[in-house]
């Protein structure tokens, strides 16, 4: 007897199943792999993510450009020097104080600033500073938010009340104003808490300030999530098995916050970079002569007509970096939960 022809489907072969039924193909995947798969399909997000990686790579290469191409460092003044451009000697800074524009050659590729410093070199080193502060502040924000959000949401009661009111107070101030106030105060005497002392010109100061002002923006949603999670059956099960609050928070709740944190991170970095630039522009962030995109902008604003390169170039870098992070961050958010409406800022 002729055997019945095999059907198109062979049970027990997931590869075949996956090839024919997309719904079944994702059923066995964890949320992280699912998210990664969705992200990989988002070409726009990936392109902007690539752009961000490129910016980071270029900034990391700053010493190479400084040593081997520009032959100067980001701090060196060249006020009275001349440079040959198109066969003609030109002042790096003219006697009336107007600096040279882009030369499109190794030295002063993007021109000089008012102190005769190479803008291209400062831009690259400034990018390192801006990215470091952005990423550092975002990390500190996340860490602080996890701690306060989890404590408030898990314990509720007076702990929640105290933490929430403190967050409300911080939230009541516009981030920029609070940042300026803290930046101005701390830049004078630095920060001294017990044995820990941070100098006023340290990059840790803007990192901590930015981290602090953004804590409510992340801690509050996390607290809400923890409030919901603590009522879930798996938490009750853990509790029934004798797990204490610390164990429950670390083992049961934190892992469930991970996707939210991942979604927040790139958006938080973008916001931190913008705030750092604003604070530095206003003199309350990175302390001169340390370069950051904000300080370069601030130094150039008075010469926006005669030396527009001083503002256009760092401004462009800021736009590209923040745009790339935001588009990539949106992609990450969509990948983790296409229905979510998570947004940072006000």
């Amino acid at each position: 007897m002729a055997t019945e022809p095999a059907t198109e489907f062979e049970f027990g072969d997931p590869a075949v199943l996956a090839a024919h039924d997309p719904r079944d193909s994702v059923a066995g995947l964890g949320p992280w792999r699912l998210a990664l798969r969705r992200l990989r399909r988002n070409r726009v997000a990936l392109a902007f993510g690539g752009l961000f990686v490129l910016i980071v790579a270029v900034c990391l290469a700053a010493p190479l450009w400084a040593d081997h191409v520009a032959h100067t460092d980001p701090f060196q003044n060249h006020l009275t020097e001349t440079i040959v451009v198109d066969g003609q000697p030109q002042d790096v800074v003219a006697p009336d104080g107007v600096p040279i524009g882009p030369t499109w050659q190794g030295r002063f590729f993007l021109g000089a600033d008012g102190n005769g410093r190479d803008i291209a070199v400062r831009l690259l080193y400034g990018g390192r500073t801006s990215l470091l502060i952005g990423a550092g502040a975002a990390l500190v924000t996340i860490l602080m938010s996890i701690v306060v959000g989890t404590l408030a949401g898990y314990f509720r009661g007076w702990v929640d009340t105290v933490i929430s009111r403190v967050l409300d107070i911080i939230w009541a101030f516009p981030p920029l104003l609070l940042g300026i106030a803290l930046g101005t105060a701390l830049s004078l005497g630095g920060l001294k808490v017990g044995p820990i002392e941070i100098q006023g010109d340290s990059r840790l100061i803007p990192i901590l300030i930015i981290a602090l002002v953004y804590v409510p923006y992340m801690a509050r949603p996390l607290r809400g999530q923890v409030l919901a999670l603590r009522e879930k059956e798996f938490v009750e099960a853990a509790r029934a098995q004798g797990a204490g609050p610390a164990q429950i928070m670390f083992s049961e709740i934190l892992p469930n916050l991970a996707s939210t944190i991942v979604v927040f991170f790139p958006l938080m970095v973008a916001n931190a970079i913008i705030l750092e630039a604003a604070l530095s522009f206003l003199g309350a962030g990175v302390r001169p002569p340390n370069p950051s995109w904000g300080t370069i902008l601030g130094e150039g604003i008075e010469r926006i007509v005669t030396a527009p390169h001083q503002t256009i170039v760092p401004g462009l870098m800021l736009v590209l970096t923040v745009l790339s992070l935001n588009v990539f961050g949106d992609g990450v958010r969509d990948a983790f939960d296409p229905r979510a409406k998570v947004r940072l800022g006000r």
Partner: protein
Amino acid sequence: MRKNLGSALAIAAVAAASGIGVAACGGSDESSGGDTGANAGGKTGGSIRIGSVLPDSYDPVLLQTVQANQPIHLVYTGLVTYKNAEGKEGNKLIPGLAEAMPSISADRKTYTFKLRPGLKYSDGSPVKASDFEHTMKRLTFLGGPFSSFVSGIQGIAEYQKAKQENADISGITSNEATREITVKLTQPDGKFLFAIGLVNSAPTPAAKSPFKSASPPGSGPYTIKIDNPTRQFVLTKTPGFDIPGIAKGNLDKITVVKETVPKMTQDVINGKLDFMTEDPSGDDLPLVKQKYSDRFRMDPNPPNTYWFFMNETVKPFDKLEVRQAVNYALDSRALQRIFGGRLEPTCNFLPPGYAGQGYEKIDPCPYGDPDGPPNLAKARQLVEQSGYKGMSVTVWGPTKDPRPAIVDYYRDLLNQIGFKAKTKVLDQQVYFGTIGLKKTNAQTGFTDWFQDFPHPADFFEPNLSKKALESSPTFNFQYKSNPVLDRGLAKLTPETDPGTVASEWAKLDRAVVEDANVAVYGNELSTSFFSERMDFKNCSGVHTVYKNDWSLFCLK
């Protein structure tokens, strides 16, 4: 006067009452008008609008900035005052409310003034001899920025201890009948007359104290009406003002409005304003210099000096070699660029405005031509020799533009000659107070000085002398003094006319430069920018004491 504080510097206060006169109708027997000091050929009448960041105070005993001095010296007149004239003539003291220069006793400790007869304030009340003492009391009691200038009057110390505004100052006696005012000093002080020529010492009516009216009575050629102290005030000609030798003012009305520097620059360009008290900044400066040169000028007024201080009590500046190295390495041409061309390189500590009063160009400069390249090789060699190579140095500076750029230049210079330098930039408002405390131990950094009154001791004494170290905070950021300078000050300051001992003052200037107590790099040029309506050629009113004397302004 002071470090270049606040917006525009404090120029110094100098001023004084100069000119302008007594509101009062003067009842002088002398012919009125006469030599008013006003520019010949200047058109009279009309009104103008001036853009300013506005005065730090409208009270003459409390004001400090040039933005206050320029208008307020037109409202009050001192017993003596500065001549309304451009150039060196502006340094000359002339009688103001006093009918002549004072008689000075043989021991140079007693000054006797006599008020002009029939003087009245702008509200019609009589000017009394006792009003001068009243002003001295207010100046001292309120602790005005320039109160130290009159601290040499006998009885001031006791007055301060009494802590009562109406207490007596034993060194001042007034006779209403004879209109005589006698001032006794504890010791001869040649600066005294120059100091009371400032508007801060101008008599104000004791009967009208305290000073809170929107239209306070004055004794100058203009009367002030403060519409809104933070927005606008108006100066109008005082009817009947007539004091011989003091300009009556060409314009009928001067309205002063608050504006930002970029806005006031645009408004002067467009003719919405006729003058601005500030210097065009950033992009605007080269634009104005190039495009409106027919109504723009730069002058080293008020006289000023910029230098880097070096604390001689801390390493590495305790060694002469290091201070010399800094002087060898300084490149004034670089700093000139940071100032946008508004800096005249020099190595003298005294500014050129003191020509004939102590300024003699040091040529050649001991550490190289200030208009030429620096000698970095020599500087590095000296640092090596000092044994301090590689030492950490913090360069201090204030936030006001372009100070951070100056400080960064200096940081880079120190690194080039062998130190590990970093900067510390403080807010302008707290900077001098912070580095002026010995406990701060500020190693080196930015400082400047703008003339208070045209006397060389005004530069040397507060900034470099032993006496300056007695106050805290001090402006002597070297925290040491040059013995040659201290001896010279003791000898020369009692002289009432510095011009008679000008060469001696010049020797002191040379001594502080040669001993590398300071690293001087230049004199800042201030700007005068007018609208097309103004008679720039004849009436720019550039003045060594007031920066611009508005009583000399006129329309085309």
